[in-house]
């Protein structure tokens, strides 16, 4: 038998202090299996030990919240007895090691979280970050991740309805793969991960357990170095076909009412499912690993309990209804296997052929893990990077050249290379085609629809994590508002570096504070999410990257708009204030190679007024199109409204923003990224109404031009500064990424 010495503890990522705590909780030394259970459940990934004190400050309640954080997914009431069930989750580390499978199993994991709740998944979105496409490694990871995201979602038949992709060298050694799944359920169909009722049988169903993914949760809680490739066996392999069967069978079983509770086996596998279900139910579980279907021979209880093989579920069934449940799984050629039963002991007891091999109080694993209030310190460089001296940049780029460069920048360019690989039409609910700000799905049998957006700007968060996080909330909410949907719930994916470094922990704390403040001001509760720490390679951390997923409710799915201009001769109206802010902008990065300055200011009350206004304008049919202003500023936003329209150009004239130094006035006006702005197009006859509505709402609004023609023409203070053929601009924008991907590998 292995004695537990310091090297064993180190391999398990357990500190000496944590080991002492385990001994106190057990009243004795753990055996190796028990240590393994603690190791995965107390990993950062499962226990949120560094983040918990911060996450507790987020607003998680509201009149619509049916399920807040703590379950497999959050749920909000969307009327008519229906619930939107949604969550975002990351698979960053696995996607670096094995892009296709890492991304695919990330999709598989979040889909399980949704159908585990009794909801049918109806849409997927993803937020992806890669290194610059000029690097072969980044191209390979991008290619593999996109194929993996598509490979899993397409097969299982859940449309990928939206997302965002950012390329920046800080993600070269640590890509981000955050996937959001949205599901739909009736309130009374929602089922939780509880183990209740002493004596009720515990069933295992799905794929067999193999040796894959052992210590995946622990791996996701450590930094990367050059030996990371050796960790490939810790990446799971996905089987979407198995998951499809599991999903259909589970949704069928859940409708029978024969289940007490159900939970998927994701991170920390069987260990997590048994202990969390027991803990939530205030019960215990006795299971015998000999009953667990195994893919390989000779697996030890340690391997069985820690395996992260995919596509597996744990269920507690009402005693007496076993045959009913078994029959449904048989129909789908799945074998539900009884592996144990619920007890009143409060303990997870693992047996091997009847012999007790582990005996741990369930709450010790789930609730009594260490909680760290890690030291936080503002980085010494923080104030420095917020300084932006326009004078030091040299001459401003010619506006036309800048526009050309921005439209061809992969951050701004069309992401069709990726989303053409995603099935977005399956399910016949998808209303907005990908490439619009939000994914929009209708709800069959109802007039309602749902809009979802995922957003986050790592550059802004690097420059100021508090404001950057607020901007992420504002942008995600604005993106659902521009299609006419009222933001009703948020989920967040917090991607950061090593929390043991005080500077990283400061970024984390500031970002969570920003999310909390913004969500409170906009009245959008956070119903769950995911924390991904240790996103570092060779000691270099990614930008702090909180990604916000916000779900919006459309009262009437037939009353929505897209970003595209609908007709020539319409008036273009800019809503919101242009302050010409260049800090952290794509213009600065793309044209001047600088990531500096303060991110745009954000007035949350102004943002809220803007969102309320646009929702009303869309619902009342007063605008023909609406588009958020973000990367690339006003000029790029207007151009994007003209793209994919079949050739409706635009002529715009705006006043220069005052007070910009060093001759940057024109570029700041056109490409600055001031927040809380929306570009709409309005039938000429409705212009006065729209302007009056804006004035009444206290939202600055200005008619800045007209749609039509085959050119994109921008004037500042009456002088033409950009004049280009729409077709050429659109081609450049549409094909920038495929041109990079087509280059010799």
């Amino acid at each position, binding site marked *: 038998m292995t004695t537990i010495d310091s090297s064993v503890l180190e391999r398990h990522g357990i500190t000496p202090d944590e080991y002492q705590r385990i001994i106190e909780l057990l009243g004795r030394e753990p055996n190796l299996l028990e240590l393994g259970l603690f190791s995965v459940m107390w990993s950062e990934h499962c226990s949120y030990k560094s983040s918990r004190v911060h996450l507790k400050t987020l607003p998680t309640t509201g009149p619509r919240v049916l399920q807040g954080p703590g379950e497999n997914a959050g749920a909000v009431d969307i009327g008519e007895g229906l619930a939107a069930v949604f969550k975002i989750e990351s698979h960053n580390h696995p996607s670096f090691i094995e892009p296709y499978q890492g991304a695919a199993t990330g999709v598989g994991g979040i889909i399980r979280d949704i159908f585990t709740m009794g909801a049918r998944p109806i849409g997927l979105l993803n937020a992806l970050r890669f290194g610059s496409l000029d690097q072969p490694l980044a191209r390979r990871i991008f290619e593999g991740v996109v194929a993996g995201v598509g490979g899993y979602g*397409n*097969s299982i038949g859940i449309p990928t309805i939206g997302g965002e992709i950012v390329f920046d060298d800080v993600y070269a050694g640590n890509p981000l793969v955050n996937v959001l799944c949205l599901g739909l359920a009736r309130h009374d169909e929602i089922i939780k991960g509880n183990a209740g009722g002493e004596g009720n049988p515990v069933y295992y169903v799905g794929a067999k357990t193999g040796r894959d993914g052992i210590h995946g949760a622990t791996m996701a809680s450590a930094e990367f170095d050059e030996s990371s490739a050796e960790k490939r066996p810790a990446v799971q392999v996905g089987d979407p*076909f198995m998951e499809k069967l599991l999903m259909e069978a589970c949704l069928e079983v859940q409708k029978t009412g024969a289940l007490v509770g159900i939970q998927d086996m994701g991170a920390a596998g069987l260990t997590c499912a048994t202990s969390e279900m027991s803990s939530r139910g205030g019960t215990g579980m006795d299971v015998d690993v000999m009953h667990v279907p195994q893919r390989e021979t000779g697996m030890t209880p340690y391997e069985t309990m820690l395996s992260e093989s995919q596509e597996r579920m744990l269920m507690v069934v009402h005693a007496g209804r076993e045959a009913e449940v078994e029959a449904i799984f048989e129909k789908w050629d799945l074998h539900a296997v009884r592996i144990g039963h619920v007890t009143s002991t409060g303990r997870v007891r693992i047996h091997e052929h009847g012999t007790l091999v582990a005996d741990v109080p369930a709450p010790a694993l789930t609730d009594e893990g260490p909680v760290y209030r890690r030291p936080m310190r503002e980085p010494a460089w923080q104030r420095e990077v917020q300084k932006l001296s326009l004078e030091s940049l040299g001459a401003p780029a010619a506006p036309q050249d800048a526009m050309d460069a921005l439209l061809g920048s992969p951050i701004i360019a069309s992401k069709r290379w990726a989303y*053409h*690989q995603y099935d977005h039409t399956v399910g016949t*609910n998808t209303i907005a085609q990908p490439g619009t700000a939000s994914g929009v799905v209708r709800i069959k049998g109802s007039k309602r629809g749902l809009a979802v957006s995922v957003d986050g700007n790592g550059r802004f968060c690097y420059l100021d994590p508090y404001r950057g996080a607020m901007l992420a909330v504002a942008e995600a909410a604005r993106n659902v508002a521009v299609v006419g949907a009222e933001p009703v719930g948020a989920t967040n994916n917090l991607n950061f570096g090593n929390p043991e470094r005080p500077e990283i922990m400061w970024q984390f704390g500031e970002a969570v504070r920003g999310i909390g403040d913004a969500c409170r001001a906009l009245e959008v509760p956070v119903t769950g999410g995911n924390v991904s720490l240790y996103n570092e390679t060779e000691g270099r951390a990614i930008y702090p990257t909180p990604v916000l997923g916000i779900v919006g409710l459309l009262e009437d799915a037939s009353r929505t708009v897209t970003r595209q201009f609908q007709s020539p001769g319409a008036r273009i109206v800019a809503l919101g204030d242009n302050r010409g802010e260049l800090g952290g902008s794509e213009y600065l990065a793309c044209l001047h190679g600088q990531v500096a300055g303060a991110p745009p200011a954000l007035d949350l009350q102004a943002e809220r007024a803007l969102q309320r206004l646009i929702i009303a304008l869309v619902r009342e049919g007063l605008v023909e199109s609406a588009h958020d202003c973000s990367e690339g500023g006003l000029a790029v936003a207007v151009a994007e409204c003209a793209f994919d329209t079949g050739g409706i150009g635009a002529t715009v004239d705006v006043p220069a923003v005052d007070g910009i130094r060093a001759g940057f006035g024109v570029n700041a006006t056109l490409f600055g990224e001031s927040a809380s702005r929306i570009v709409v197009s309005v039938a000429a006859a409705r212009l006065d109404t729209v302007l009056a509505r804006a004035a009444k709402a206290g939202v600055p609004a200005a008619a800045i031009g007209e749609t039509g023609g085959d050119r994109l023409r921008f004037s500042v203070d009456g002088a033409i500064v950009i004049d280009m053929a729409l077709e050429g601009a659109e081609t450049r924008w549409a094909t920038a990424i495929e041109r990079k991907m087509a280059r010799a590998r």
Partner: protein
Amino acid sequence: MTFAVVVFPGSNSDRDAAEAARVLGERARLVWHKDTELGEADAVILPGGFAHGDYLRTGAIARFSPIMGAVADFAERGGPVLGICNGFQVLLEAGLLPGAMVRNRDIKFRCEFVPVRVDQVDTPFTSACAPGQVLHLPIAHGEGNYYAPPDVVESLEANRQVIFRYTDRSGAMTEGSNPNGSVHAIAGICNAARNVVGLMPHPERACEAPLGSDDGRIVLASAAEAIRDGRFRARPAAAASR
């Protein structure tokens, strides 16, 4: 009239096909692949998805599903059968249509709306179309690159069995209008008796304008009309020549 939609394990457009039939005011029944009888059915749809995981080859295992005997019998009796996407692949593997599918020319899965030209209107699924009519339909496949040996393609063309082709919006075949590399830009074909039709695009996903197009309605509407006026109807089982 009633469409029977076969559900294989891994089908993912079965409910979409049934919904499309209902949108058109017709009935739809889902038939489990382990059944051996179709039950009430005026037309059969093999839906999109990835039957049996598409392991081995797309559609290769589905042909052995118990229901396929009844589908073949229904086809032989002249009943209208439509294979969409993966359903088309199953029809190819089952030998109800000639040819095979290989990976898309660029190796990637491809999903987008594309123009699809209707070349022949004497099938149950195109009878309401105008010859040369261009439909705006979504594709969503990784293996939709239709291939058959030259002599087979020649005979398909000679017998007017190429029903749908990828074209541009005006109906012209161009270098850029073939999304997957299919030989002769073939998007769909029929059998010699013209009652079995397979196509890669998804008409059932384009039956309501808010979804991006309602051009697909005409495919199922054709079948409903053709069956109602008796042009395409399965002969009774007893009368079938076996």
